[in-house]
């Protein structure tokens, strides 16, 4: 094999699938073979079966819906505030100087550590879960968006000036469209992190959601349910990410995003 030499699309698929096959074979071997006792690790078959039961008999679909709703809700609130603020910070260095030091400190504060406080402040209802997502994504968003906007190619801005743009036009017709694809990419990335936070929020004080199902299953040592839950989250994350990527590519055909 030569470094960087591409492999044929066919063997790409074969190799990729073979890892999954291998993974399941090993999993099945250790579980069915009895090397690992049932309560430590459910076998793949039981996992799938329990997952099905969860969906059909225990209303797991509703849990999934709740979790998705929380992520999307908290994230949207964060985005609605973060995008304008980030754009302002990127465009006006004075605004940036005012907010930046605080925001870049705040983004290191782990959202999960806020949960105890948030329960106090917002209760255990949806407000609390949304707040966790908000804290987890807001500061990152603001900072990354401000950087994107601030990195707008100076020559484009200067070109706009020589074409007669005023300051307002520079912000609305140059800075904003020029950084839009990067802002969309930032939103996609940060949404990916938000999934982690929602699970934490649901592990602690929730009556529905995927995280809650996992806590419930813990008592029963139902590793099948836990693993199913984890896989469901993974799949949702994967699907949203791909959808978001495709959407961005569609929305910004002029940008050379990830090839």
């Amino acid at each position, binding site marked *: 094999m030569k470094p960087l030499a591409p492999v044929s699309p066919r063997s790409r698929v074969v190799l990729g699938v073979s890892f999954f096959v291998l993974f399941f074979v090993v999993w099945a071997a250790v579980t069915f073979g009895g090397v690992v006792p049932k309560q430590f690790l459910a076998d793949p078959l039981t996992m799938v079966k329990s997952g099905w039961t969860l969906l059909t008999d225990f209303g797991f679909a509703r849990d999934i819906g709740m979790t998705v709703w929380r992520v999307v809700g908290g994230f949207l609130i964060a985005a609605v505030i973060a995008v304008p603020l980030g754009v302002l910070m990127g465009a006006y260095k004075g605004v940036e100087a005012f907010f930046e030091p605080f925001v870049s400190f705040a983004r290191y504060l782990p959202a999960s550590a806020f949960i105890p406080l948030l329960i106090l402040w917002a209760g255990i209802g949806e407000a609390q879960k949304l707040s966790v997502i908000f804290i987890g994504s807001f500061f990152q968003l603001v900072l990354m968006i401000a950087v994107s906007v601030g990195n707008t190619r100076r020559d484009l801005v200067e070109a706009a000036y020589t*074409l007669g743009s005023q300051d307002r*036009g520079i912000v609305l017709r140059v800075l904003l469209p020029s950084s839009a694809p990067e802002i969309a990419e930032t939103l996609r990335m940060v949404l990916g992190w938000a999934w982690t936070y929602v699970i934490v929020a649901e592990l602690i004080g929730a009556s529905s959601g995927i995280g809650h199902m996992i806590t419930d299953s813990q008592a029963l040592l139902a590793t099948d349910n836990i693993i199913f839950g984890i896989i469901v989250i993974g799949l949702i994350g994967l699907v949203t990410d791909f959808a978001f990527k495709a959407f961005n590519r569609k929305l910004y055909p002029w940008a050379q995003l990830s090839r």
Partner: protein
Amino acid sequence: MGAVEPLIARAQAAPAGDVLSIRGVARTFAGGTVALQATDLAVAENDFITILGPSGCGKSTLLRMVAGLDTPTSGAIELDGRPVAGPGADRGMVFQSYTLFPWLTVLQNVCFGLREKGLPLQQQLDIAHPFIARVGLKGFEHHYPKQLSGGMQQRTALARALANDPRILLMDEPFGALDHQTRELMQELLLGIWEAERKTVLFVTHDIDEAIFMGSRVVVMSARPGRIKCDIPVPLPHPRHYAMKTTPPFAELKATLMEEIRVEVQRAAGLV
């Protein structure tokens, strides 16, 4: 185009007719770099002035100050007698780097300045389309910049600047990033447009052939700190044909400029 009288006559017109006048303009950057020493330059109506000079001698700095993108440390720049205070649509600029807005199509790019002026859409289109045709991009109106070659992008940038109908066109090595052949085609295209419209142009280049072929006057700048070293009229008749580049008068002028510029380049490189 018909017979065009040698431009040199116009260039020597009375200073009263100057479109642009640069008087004692100097620029020192924050770090202490003197980019430009006190410089004087008068640009008359319909002049095509090419500026030659070694790298770092302040050519871009000068052009940017005329455009209003930078401010002189001292001296005055006046356009039609009014001092330049900031950038504006009356001084169109074409940059060496590709500065089309990547999120706009060719047509939208050309309309950009018109839209900023607040013209209604139909009027924008009426102005833009002829310019797009003029630079040979008919059929490419709805292409995005990334779908165009470098030469096509610079042609669009030219159309965009011209569509705004500026008093003066500032061009900072507009063909510098193109390959040699594309560059020659672009020179002919720009020259053709100039011969038809007689737009006043300030054109920076490194290429002596280009400077002579395009210009009605060639201004040579000295190595940093920059200053105008000589200002040589180009007595070649218009319309000019590319074959002119291998004629003896051209070669003669080139030999002169080559000597002038060579000393400066060596000085800039610290070899003298």
